[in-house]
């Protein structure tokens, strides 16, 4: 059996999520399905960024009271990826909320959730 590190596993899962999310956003017709696909896409991006910071055999990058400071930079996981992810989760929630509000408003106007029906380019 091929040896797979946890980091590679994370990247594989992230790739699957991103591909599924983009495919769902592009090809599914239902607006709520598109919204769910966007949450999957943002999850995938988060997972990729967290996997970037993983260090094989490392420790959680939190300095415990008794830990040695000299060892810490060599063994701790990198924190730049997770630093972005925390913000990306929040941005994902706000984007989801705005999309959901717009979808509800358009449903009240058009009576449908089908993107091909709602987003038709007719001019007013």
């Amino acid at each position: 059996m091929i040896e797979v590190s946890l980091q590679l596993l994370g990247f594989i899962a992230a790739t699957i999520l991103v591909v599924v999310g983009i495919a769902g956003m592009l090809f599914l017709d239902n607006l709520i399905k598109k919204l769910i696909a966007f949450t999957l896409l943002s999850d995938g991006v988060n997972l990729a960024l967290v996997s970037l910071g993983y260090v094989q055999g490392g420790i959680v990058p939190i300095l415990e009271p008794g830990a040695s400071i000299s060892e810490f930079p060599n063994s701790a996981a990198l924190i730049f990826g997770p630093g972005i992810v925390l913000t990306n989760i929040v941005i994902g929630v706000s984007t989801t909320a705005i999309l959901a509000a717009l979808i509800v408003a358009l449903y009240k106007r058009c009576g449908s959730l089908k993107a091909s029906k709602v987003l038709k380019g007719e001019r007013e």
Partner: protein
Amino acid sequence: MIDTFMTVAYLMVIGVTIGAVAALLQKDLLRAAYITGAESIALAFLFHALLAPDLGLTQAIVGTVLMPGIIILAILKTRRREESD
């Protein structure tokens, strides 16, 4: 020898994959929203395993409560099942 930790990680990756695909194939939108919540729990475990426990906690709360909550609100305000034609 079977590494228990890696086995669970494999299971969680499979869970994330199945959850993502199942959520998009589900006809009942409400059920699809629940499935994204389940997928988020698997993702939160992966975050833990990848040495980011703080993000795991955040993802567990946001991904299982807030995101499905918003989607469920949108579904309740619109319609539950996908249009067939």
